[in-house]
Protein backbone atom coordinates (compact mmCIF):
# COMPACT_ATOMS: atom_id res chain seq x y z
CA UNK A 1 0.00 0.00 0.00
CA UNK A 2 1.44 3.34 -0.94
CA UNK A 3 1.84 6.04 1.71
CA UNK A 4 -0.85 8.14 0.08
CA UNK A 5 -3.39 5.32 0.06
CA UNK A 6 -2.55 4.56 3.68
CA UNK A 7 -3.03 8.25 4.56
CA UNK A 8 -6.45 8.29 2.92
CA UNK A 9 -7.47 5.01 4.53
CA UNK A 10 -6.61 6.34 8.00
CA UNK A 11 -8.67 9.46 7.37
CA UNK A 12 -11.63 7.43 6.10
CA UNK A 13 -11.46 5.04 9.03
CA UNK A 14 -11.22 7.81 11.65
CA UNK A 15 -14.07 9.75 10.07
CA UNK A 16 -16.20 6.61 10.01
CA UNK A 17 -15.44 5.93 13.68
CA UNK A 18 -16.18 9.56 14.56
CA UNK A 19 -19.52 9.29 12.78
CA UNK A 20 -20.36 6.20 14.82
CA UNK A 21 -19.68 8.21 17.99
CA UNK A 22 -21.22 11.45 16.74
CA UNK A 23 -22.48 12.28 20.23
CA UNK A 24 -18.85 12.93 21.23
CA UNK A 25 -18.44 15.47 18.46
CA UNK A 26 -21.55 17.27 19.63
CA UNK A 27 -20.14 17.49 23.16
CA UNK A 28 -17.16 19.49 21.88
CA UNK A 29 -19.41 21.89 19.98
CA UNK A 30 -21.77 22.35 22.91
CA UNK A 31 -18.75 23.02 25.13
CA UNK A 32 -17.56 25.69 22.68
CA UNK A 33 -20.97 27.39 22.72
CA UNK A 34 -21.27 27.15 26.50
CA UNK A 35 -17.88 28.74 27.18
CA UNK A 36 -18.74 31.55 24.77
CA UNK A 37 -22.09 32.06 26.54
CA UNK A 38 -20.57 32.26 30.01
CA UNK A 39 -18.51 35.37 29.28
CA UNK A 40 -21.41 37.82 28.77
CA UNK A 41 -22.91 36.47 32.00
CA UNK A 42 -19.67 37.09 33.86
CA UNK A 43 -18.70 40.52 32.57
CA UNK A 44 -22.08 42.02 31.71
CA UNK A 45 -23.94 42.38 28.41
CA UNK A 46 -22.64 45.77 27.32
CA UNK A 47 -22.63 45.64 23.52
CA UNK A 48 -19.48 47.69 22.94
CA UNK A 49 -17.42 45.65 25.38
CA UNK A 50 -18.71 42.36 23.97
CA UNK A 51 -17.82 43.23 20.39
CA UNK A 52 -14.33 44.15 21.57
CA UNK A 53 -13.63 40.94 23.49
CA UNK A 54 -15.63 38.68 21.15
CA UNK A 55 -12.79 37.49 18.88
CA UNK A 56 -10.52 36.68 21.82
CA UNK A 57 -13.21 34.88 23.75
CA UNK A 58 -14.18 32.78 20.73
CA UNK A 59 -10.55 31.90 20.07
CA UNK A 60 -9.96 30.83 23.67
CA UNK A 61 -13.18 28.81 23.61
CA UNK A 62 -12.06 27.13 20.38
CA UNK A 63 -8.72 26.23 21.95
CA UNK A 64 -10.40 24.76 25.04
CA UNK A 65 -12.84 22.77 22.92
CA UNK A 66 -9.92 21.46 20.88
CA UNK A 67 -8.03 20.53 24.06
CA UNK A 68 -11.09 18.63 25.27
CA UNK A 69 -11.10 16.56 22.07
CA UNK A 70 -7.36 15.85 21.98
CA UNK A 71 -7.23 12.68 24.11
CA UNK A 72 -9.62 11.12 21.60
CA UNK A 73 -6.91 11.36 18.95
CA UNK A 74 -4.97 8.24 19.98
CA UNK A 75 -6.43 7.03 23.29
CA UNK A 76 -9.02 4.51 22.07
CA UNK A 77 -6.75 3.09 19.38
CA UNK A 78 -3.95 2.75 21.87
CA UNK A 79 -6.13 0.96 24.42
CA UNK A 80 -7.50 -1.68 22.04
CA UNK A 81 -4.17 -2.26 20.29
CA UNK A 82 -5.17 -0.77 16.94
CA UNK A 83 -2.34 1.75 17.16
CA UNK A 84 0.20 -1.07 17.24
CA UNK A 85 -1.38 -2.63 14.17
CA UNK A 86 -1.29 0.70 12.36
CA UNK A 87 2.41 1.06 13.17
CA UNK A 88 3.04 -2.37 11.63
CA UNK A 89 1.59 -1.26 8.30
CA UNK A 90 4.20 -1.00 5.54
CA UNK A 91 3.99 2.80 5.42
CA UNK A 92 5.65 5.54 7.47
CA UNK A 93 4.11 6.09 10.90
CA UNK A 94 4.15 9.82 10.27
CA UNK A 95 1.63 9.29 7.42
CA UNK A 96 -0.67 7.54 9.86
CA UNK A 97 -0.34 10.44 12.30
CA UNK A 98 -0.92 12.96 9.51
CA UNK A 99 -4.11 11.11 8.55
CA UNK A 100 -5.30 11.17 12.14
CA UNK A 101 -4.54 14.90 12.41
CA UNK A 102 -6.57 15.62 9.27
CA UNK A 103 -9.48 13.52 10.51
CA UNK A 104 -9.31 15.22 13.91
CA UNK A 105 -9.34 18.63 12.25
CA UNK A 106 -12.30 17.69 10.06
CA UNK A 107 -14.26 16.55 13.11
CA UNK A 108 -13.33 19.37 15.53
CA UNK A 109 -11.76 22.36 13.77
CA UNK A 110 -14.15 22.56 10.82
CA UNK A 111 -17.37 22.36 12.90
CA UNK A 112 -15.97 25.03 15.24
CA UNK A 113 -15.16 27.26 12.29
CA UNK A 114 -18.65 26.81 10.87
CA UNK A 115 -20.47 27.55 14.10
CA UNK A 116 -18.23 30.49 15.12
CA UNK A 117 -20.09 33.14 13.01
CA UNK A 118 -23.30 32.31 14.87
CA UNK A 119 -21.63 33.14 18.20
CA UNK A 120 -19.86 36.09 16.58
CA UNK A 121 -23.23 37.60 15.70
CA UNK A 122 -24.30 37.23 19.32
CA UNK A 123 -21.20 39.17 20.30
CA UNK A 124 -22.14 41.88 17.80
CA UNK A 125 -19.24 41.40 15.38
CA UNK A 126 -19.64 43.03 11.97
CA UNK A 127 -19.58 40.94 8.80
CA UNK A 128 -15.94 41.64 7.83
CA UNK A 129 -14.89 40.68 11.37
CA UNK A 130 -16.88 37.47 11.10
CA UNK A 131 -15.20 36.67 7.82
CA UNK A 132 -11.75 37.24 9.29
CA UNK A 133 -12.66 35.21 12.37
CA UNK A 134 -13.66 32.30 10.16
CA UNK A 135 -10.49 32.64 8.09
CA UNK A 136 -8.23 32.61 11.17
CA UNK A 137 -10.07 29.64 12.67
CA UNK A 138 -9.88 27.82 9.34
CA UNK A 139 -6.09 28.29 9.19
CA UNK A 140 -5.45 28.11 12.92
CA UNK A 141 -7.38 25.00 13.97
CA UNK A 142 -5.19 22.62 11.89
CA UNK A 143 -2.22 23.95 13.90
CA UNK A 144 -4.07 23.15 17.12
CA UNK A 145 -4.68 19.59 15.93
CA UNK A 146 -1.08 19.18 14.74
CA UNK A 147 0.65 20.53 17.86
CA UNK A 148 -1.93 18.79 20.02
CA UNK A 149 -1.11 15.46 18.40
CA UNK A 150 2.44 15.70 19.80
CA UNK A 151 1.09 16.35 23.30
CA UNK A 152 -1.54 13.61 23.00
CA UNK A 153 1.08 11.11 21.86
CA UNK A 154 3.51 12.05 24.64
CA UNK A 155 0.88 11.63 27.36
CA UNK A 156 -0.55 8.30 26.15
CA UNK A 157 -1.00 6.11 29.21
CA UNK A 158 0.82 8.54 31.48
CA UNK A 159 -0.41 9.17 35.02
CA UNK A 160 -2.85 12.13 35.02
CA UNK A 161 -2.31 12.31 31.29
CA UNK A 162 -5.18 14.68 30.56
CA UNK A 163 -4.04 17.27 33.08
CA UNK A 164 -0.49 17.00 31.81
CA UNK A 165 -1.72 17.38 28.25
CA UNK A 166 -3.13 20.81 29.08
CA UNK A 167 0.13 21.90 30.69
CA UNK A 168 2.18 20.74 27.69
CA UNK A 169 -0.03 21.96 24.90
CA UNK A 170 -1.45 25.30 26.04
CA UNK A 171 1.91 27.16 26.05
CA UNK A 172 2.53 25.85 22.54
CA UNK A 173 -0.89 27.14 21.42
CA UNK A 174 -0.07 30.69 22.51
CA UNK A 175 1.34 31.97 19.15
CA UNK A 176 -1.73 30.66 17.30
CA UNK A 177 -3.99 32.46 19.75
CA UNK A 178 -1.96 35.68 19.49
CA UNK A 179 -1.98 35.84 15.71
CA UNK A 180 -5.48 34.41 15.32
CA UNK A 181 -7.22 36.90 17.56
CA UNK A 182 -4.69 39.59 16.50
CA UNK A 183 -5.82 39.36 12.87
CA UNK A 184 -9.44 39.91 13.87
CA UNK A 185 -8.45 42.78 16.17
CA UNK A 186 -6.48 44.33 13.31
CA UNK A 187 -9.59 44.29 11.09
CA UNK A 188 -11.55 45.84 13.94
CA UNK A 189 -8.90 48.56 14.15
CA UNK A 190 -9.24 49.41 10.46
CA UNK A 191 -6.28 47.43 9.06
CA UNK A 192 -6.58 44.46 6.75
CA UNK A 193 -4.99 41.91 9.14
CA UNK A 194 -3.15 40.10 6.34
CA UNK A 195 0.18 40.28 8.21
CA UNK A 196 -1.15 38.24 11.14
CA UNK A 197 -2.96 35.91 8.78
CA UNK A 198 0.25 35.25 6.83
CA UNK A 199 2.15 34.53 10.04
CA UNK A 200 -0.61 32.15 11.07
CA UNK A 201 -0.36 30.41 7.71
CA UNK A 202 3.42 30.16 8.13
CA UNK A 203 2.98 28.56 11.55
CA UNK A 204 0.45 26.18 10.00
CA UNK A 205 2.91 25.12 7.28
CA UNK A 206 5.73 24.59 9.76
CA UNK A 207 3.74 22.68 12.33
CA UNK A 208 1.90 20.51 9.79
CA UNK A 209 5.27 19.60 8.33
CA UNK A 210 7.04 18.75 11.60
CA UNK A 211 4.28 17.58 13.95
CA UNK A 212 3.40 14.22 12.32
CA UNK A 213 7.03 13.19 12.44
CA UNK A 214 7.54 14.14 16.10
CA UNK A 215 4.17 12.69 17.15
CA UNK A 216 5.00 9.43 15.39
CA UNK A 217 8.22 9.26 17.39
CA UNK A 218 6.25 9.81 20.60
CA UNK A 219 3.67 7.15 19.67
CA UNK A 220 6.35 4.54 19.15
CA UNK A 221 7.51 5.24 22.70
CA UNK A 222 4.03 4.61 24.07
CA UNK A 223 3.57 1.39 22.12
CA UNK A 224 6.97 -0.15 22.81
Amino acid sequence: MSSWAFFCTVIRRDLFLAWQQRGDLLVGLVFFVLVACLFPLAIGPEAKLLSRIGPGVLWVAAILANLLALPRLFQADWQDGTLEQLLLAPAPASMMVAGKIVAHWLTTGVPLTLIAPLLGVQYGLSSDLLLMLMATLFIGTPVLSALGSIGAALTLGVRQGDMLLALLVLPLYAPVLIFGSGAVAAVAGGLNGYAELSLLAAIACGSLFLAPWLAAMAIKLAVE
Partner: protein
Amino acid sequence: MKPHADGPRWLNIFHFASPYQFYPLAGRLIPLFATLAVLLAIAGLWLGFAIAPADAQQGEGYRIIFLHVPTSWMAMLIYVAMAFWSVMHLILRTRLSAMMAQALAPTGALMAFLSLFTGALWGKPMWGTWWVWDARLTSMLLLFFLYLGFIALTRSIDEPDRADKAGSVLAIVGVFNVPVIYFSVKWWNTLHQGASISIEKGSTMASTMLIGMLLMSLAAWMYSITTTLSRVRNLILQREARTRWVQELLAISANKA
Protein backbone atom coordinates in the same frame (compact mmCIF):
# COMPACT_ATOMS: atom_id res chain seq x y z
CA MET B 1 29.14 5.24 16.00
CA LYS B 2 31.48 3.43 18.32
CA PRO B 3 34.11 5.05 20.52
CA HIS B 4 37.63 4.34 19.35
CA ALA B 5 39.69 2.26 21.68
CA ASP B 6 42.99 3.80 20.59
CA GLY B 7 44.06 7.42 20.68
CA PRO B 8 44.28 9.75 23.65
CA ARG B 9 41.38 9.55 26.05
CA TRP B 10 40.62 13.25 26.15
CA LEU B 11 40.16 13.38 22.38
CA ASN B 12 37.35 10.89 22.49
CA ILE B 13 34.14 12.75 23.28
CA PHE B 14 32.29 9.50 23.76
CA HIS B 15 34.54 8.48 26.60
CA PHE B 16 32.61 10.62 29.07
CA ALA B 17 29.25 9.76 27.53
CA SER B 18 29.15 6.72 29.77
CA PRO B 19 27.63 7.49 33.18
CA TYR B 20 30.32 5.35 34.80
CA GLN B 21 33.07 7.60 33.45
CA PHE B 22 31.14 10.83 33.88
CA TYR B 23 30.18 10.38 37.52
CA PRO B 24 33.70 10.89 38.98
CA LEU B 25 34.49 13.64 36.44
CA ALA B 26 31.39 15.57 37.52
CA GLY B 27 32.37 15.02 41.13
CA ARG B 28 35.76 16.62 40.49
CA LEU B 29 34.30 19.54 38.50
CA ILE B 30 31.57 20.54 40.97
CA PRO B 31 33.85 22.16 43.63
CA LEU B 32 35.67 24.07 40.88
CA PHE B 33 32.50 25.56 39.38
CA ALA B 34 30.96 26.18 42.80
CA THR B 35 34.02 28.19 43.90
CA LEU B 36 33.99 30.16 40.66
CA ALA B 37 30.28 30.88 41.10
CA VAL B 38 30.78 32.25 44.60
CA LEU B 39 33.82 34.37 43.66
CA LEU B 40 32.17 35.81 40.56
CA ALA B 41 28.97 36.53 42.46
CA ILE B 42 30.88 38.37 45.19
CA ALA B 43 32.81 40.43 42.63
CA GLY B 44 29.68 41.12 40.57
CA LEU B 45 27.54 42.10 43.55
CA TRP B 46 30.28 44.33 44.94
CA LEU B 47 30.72 46.06 41.58
CA GLY B 48 26.99 46.31 41.03
CA PHE B 49 25.83 47.47 44.43
CA ALA B 50 28.83 49.40 45.78
CA ILE B 51 30.81 50.76 42.83
CA ALA B 52 28.45 51.29 39.88
CA PRO B 53 26.90 54.78 39.71
CA ALA B 54 23.19 55.40 40.09
CA ASP B 55 21.30 55.44 36.81
CA ALA B 56 20.48 58.82 35.28
CA GLN B 57 16.79 58.02 34.82
CA GLN B 58 16.05 55.23 37.25
CA GLY B 59 18.19 56.18 40.26
CA GLU B 60 19.11 53.32 42.57
CA GLY B 61 16.18 51.15 41.62
CA TYR B 62 17.85 49.94 38.46
CA ARG B 63 20.32 47.85 40.47
CA ILE B 64 18.03 44.84 40.34
CA ILE B 65 19.25 44.56 36.76
CA PHE B 66 22.25 42.70 38.17
CA LEU B 67 19.89 39.85 39.07
CA HIS B 68 17.21 40.34 36.45
CA VAL B 69 19.26 40.27 33.26
CA PRO B 70 21.51 37.30 34.16
CA THR B 71 18.54 35.17 35.24
CA SER B 72 16.61 36.06 32.08
CA TRP B 73 19.56 35.15 29.90
CA MET B 74 20.08 31.89 31.74
CA ALA B 75 16.39 30.97 31.50
CA MET B 76 16.54 31.20 27.70
CA LEU B 77 20.01 29.70 27.38
CA ILE B 78 19.24 26.70 29.57
CA TYR B 79 16.24 25.84 27.40
CA VAL B 80 18.45 25.95 24.31
CA ALA B 81 20.98 23.74 26.11
CA MET B 82 18.17 21.34 27.02
CA ALA B 83 17.07 21.20 23.39
CA PHE B 84 20.70 20.63 22.34
CA TRP B 85 21.10 17.65 24.70
CA SER B 86 17.69 16.36 23.56
CA VAL B 87 18.80 16.40 19.93
CA MET B 88 22.01 14.65 20.98
CA HIS B 89 19.95 12.04 22.81
CA LEU B 90 17.69 11.36 19.86
CA ILE B 91 20.55 11.22 17.33
CA LEU B 92 23.40 9.56 19.24
CA ARG B 93 21.19 7.65 21.70
CA THR B 94 23.46 8.47 24.61
CA ARG B 95 21.62 8.13 27.91
CA LEU B 96 23.72 10.77 29.58
CA SER B 97 22.47 13.47 27.17
CA ALA B 98 18.88 12.92 28.28
CA MET B 99 19.99 13.00 31.92
CA MET B 100 21.72 16.33 31.23
CA ALA B 101 18.50 17.73 29.77
CA GLN B 102 16.52 16.57 32.78
CA ALA B 103 19.10 17.93 35.20
CA LEU B 104 19.02 21.33 33.49
CA ALA B 105 15.23 21.72 33.69
CA PRO B 106 14.79 22.59 37.40
CA THR B 107 17.56 25.19 37.25
CA GLY B 108 15.98 26.64 34.12
CA ALA B 109 12.59 26.81 35.80
CA LEU B 110 14.18 28.55 38.78
CA MET B 111 15.88 31.07 36.51
CA ALA B 112 12.66 31.80 34.61
CA PHE B 113 10.85 32.26 37.91
CA LEU B 114 13.55 34.59 39.26
CA SER B 115 13.50 36.55 36.03
CA LEU B 116 9.74 37.08 36.35
CA PHE B 117 9.99 37.82 40.05
CA THR B 118 12.83 40.36 39.85
CA GLY B 119 11.11 41.85 36.81
CA ALA B 120 7.97 42.40 38.87
CA LEU B 121 10.01 43.99 41.66
CA TRP B 122 11.64 46.26 39.10
CA GLY B 123 8.40 47.04 37.29
CA LYS B 124 6.53 48.26 40.34
CA PRO B 125 8.65 51.37 41.05
CA MET B 126 9.54 52.08 37.38
CA TRP B 127 6.28 51.39 35.53
CA GLY B 128 3.94 51.57 38.53
CA THR B 129 2.69 48.02 38.01
CA TRP B 130 3.79 44.51 38.98
CA TRP B 131 2.77 42.96 35.73
CA VAL B 132 1.71 43.95 32.21
CA TRP B 133 0.56 41.62 29.44
CA ASP B 134 3.55 42.58 27.38
CA ALA B 135 4.92 40.18 24.76
CA ARG B 136 8.24 39.72 26.50
CA LEU B 137 6.79 39.14 29.96
CA THR B 138 4.13 36.80 28.66
CA SER B 139 6.52 34.74 26.58
CA MET B 140 8.85 34.39 29.57
CA LEU B 141 5.88 33.17 31.59
CA LEU B 142 5.17 30.65 28.84
CA LEU B 143 8.81 29.56 28.98
CA PHE B 144 8.34 28.96 32.71
CA PHE B 145 5.32 26.78 31.94
CA LEU B 146 7.28 24.91 29.29
CA TYR B 147 9.88 24.07 31.94
CA LEU B 148 7.14 22.93 34.31
CA GLY B 149 5.58 20.81 31.57
CA PHE B 150 8.93 19.20 30.78
CA ILE B 151 9.57 18.42 34.45
CA ALA B 152 6.03 17.08 34.95
CA LEU B 153 6.21 14.90 31.84
CA THR B 154 9.59 13.34 32.61
CA ARG B 155 8.62 12.78 36.25
CA SER B 156 5.28 11.13 35.49
CA ILE B 157 6.66 8.49 33.12
CA ASP B 158 8.07 5.55 35.03
CA GLU B 159 10.17 3.80 32.38
CA PRO B 160 13.41 5.83 32.16
CA ASP B 161 13.87 5.14 28.47
CA ARG B 162 10.44 6.48 27.52
CA ALA B 163 10.80 9.43 29.91
CA ASP B 164 14.09 10.37 28.23
CA LYS B 165 12.74 10.24 24.71
CA ALA B 166 9.42 11.90 25.53
CA GLY B 167 11.25 14.72 27.29
CA SER B 168 13.57 15.13 24.32
CA VAL B 169 10.69 15.47 21.88
CA LEU B 170 8.99 18.04 24.10
CA ALA B 171 12.18 20.08 24.60
CA ILE B 172 12.68 20.27 20.85
CA VAL B 173 9.10 21.39 20.22
CA GLY B 174 9.31 24.06 22.91
CA VAL B 175 12.61 25.56 21.80
CA PHE B 176 10.80 27.55 19.11
CA ASN B 177 9.55 29.81 21.88
CA VAL B 178 13.06 31.02 22.74
CA PRO B 179 13.72 33.15 19.63
CA VAL B 180 10.26 34.67 20.10
CA ILE B 181 11.26 35.84 23.59
CA TYR B 182 14.65 37.00 22.44
CA PHE B 183 13.34 39.15 19.61
CA SER B 184 10.14 40.25 21.32
CA VAL B 185 11.75 43.47 22.55
CA LYS B 186 12.49 44.39 18.93
CA TRP B 187 9.22 43.20 17.39
CA TRP B 188 6.76 44.59 19.91
CA ASN B 189 7.61 47.94 21.41
CA THR B 190 5.56 48.08 24.56
CA LEU B 191 6.36 48.81 28.17
CA HIS B 192 9.44 46.62 28.45
CA GLN B 193 12.58 48.62 27.66
CA GLY B 194 14.80 47.69 24.74
CA ALA B 195 17.83 45.46 25.10
CA SER B 196 20.71 47.20 26.86
CA ILE B 197 23.35 45.34 24.90
CA SER B 198 23.31 44.54 21.21
CA ILE B 199 25.91 43.08 18.90
CA GLU B 200 25.68 45.83 16.29
CA LYS B 201 25.58 48.88 18.55
CA GLY B 202 27.49 47.63 21.55
CA SER B 203 26.43 48.59 25.02
CA THR B 204 24.49 51.69 25.98
CA MET B 205 25.45 51.42 29.63
CA ALA B 206 28.25 52.72 31.85
CA SER B 207 31.19 50.34 31.77
CA THR B 208 31.11 49.46 35.49
CA MET B 209 27.44 48.55 35.15
CA LEU B 210 28.21 46.43 32.13
CA ILE B 211 31.12 44.64 33.80
CA GLY B 212 29.06 44.04 36.93
CA MET B 213 26.28 42.56 34.85
CA LEU B 214 28.64 40.35 32.90
CA LEU B 215 30.25 39.12 36.12
CA MET B 216 26.83 38.29 37.52
CA SER B 217 25.96 36.48 34.29
CA LEU B 218 29.13 34.41 34.54
CA ALA B 219 28.24 33.65 38.16
CA ALA B 220 24.81 32.51 37.00
CA TRP B 221 26.49 30.26 34.41
CA MET B 222 28.77 28.73 37.00
CA TYR B 223 25.89 28.27 39.43
CA SER B 224 23.80 26.56 36.76
CA ILE B 225 26.67 24.26 35.79
CA THR B 226 27.23 23.34 39.43
CA THR B 227 23.61 22.49 40.15
CA THR B 228 23.22 20.64 36.86
CA LEU B 229 26.28 18.50 37.44
CA SER B 230 25.25 17.57 40.95
CA ARG B 231 21.74 16.75 39.74
CA VAL B 232 23.18 14.60 36.97
CA ARG B 233 25.18 12.71 39.59
CA ASN B 234 21.98 12.00 41.51
CA LEU B 235 20.22 10.88 38.35
CA ILE B 236 23.11 8.57 37.48
CA LEU B 237 23.00 6.99 40.93
CA GLN B 238 19.23 6.51 40.66
CA ARG B 239 19.33 5.02 37.19
CA GLU B 240 22.39 2.85 37.71
CA ALA B 241 21.48 1.78 41.24
CA ARG B 242 21.61 -1.88 40.27
CA THR B 243 24.96 -1.84 38.52
CA ARG B 244 28.02 -3.18 40.21
CA TRP B 245 30.02 0.05 40.31
CA VAL B 246 27.24 1.94 42.11
CA GLN B 247 26.86 -0.89 44.60
CA GLU B 248 30.60 -0.81 45.24
CA LEU B 249 30.57 2.98 45.56
CA LEU B 250 27.76 2.81 48.10
CA ALA B 251 29.57 0.09 50.01
CA ILE B 252 32.70 2.26 50.18
CA SER B 253 30.81 5.33 51.40
CA ALA B 254 28.92 3.19 53.92
CA ASN B 255 32.23 1.91 55.30
CA LYS B 256 33.57 5.43 55.62
CA ALA B 257 30.57 6.62 57.59
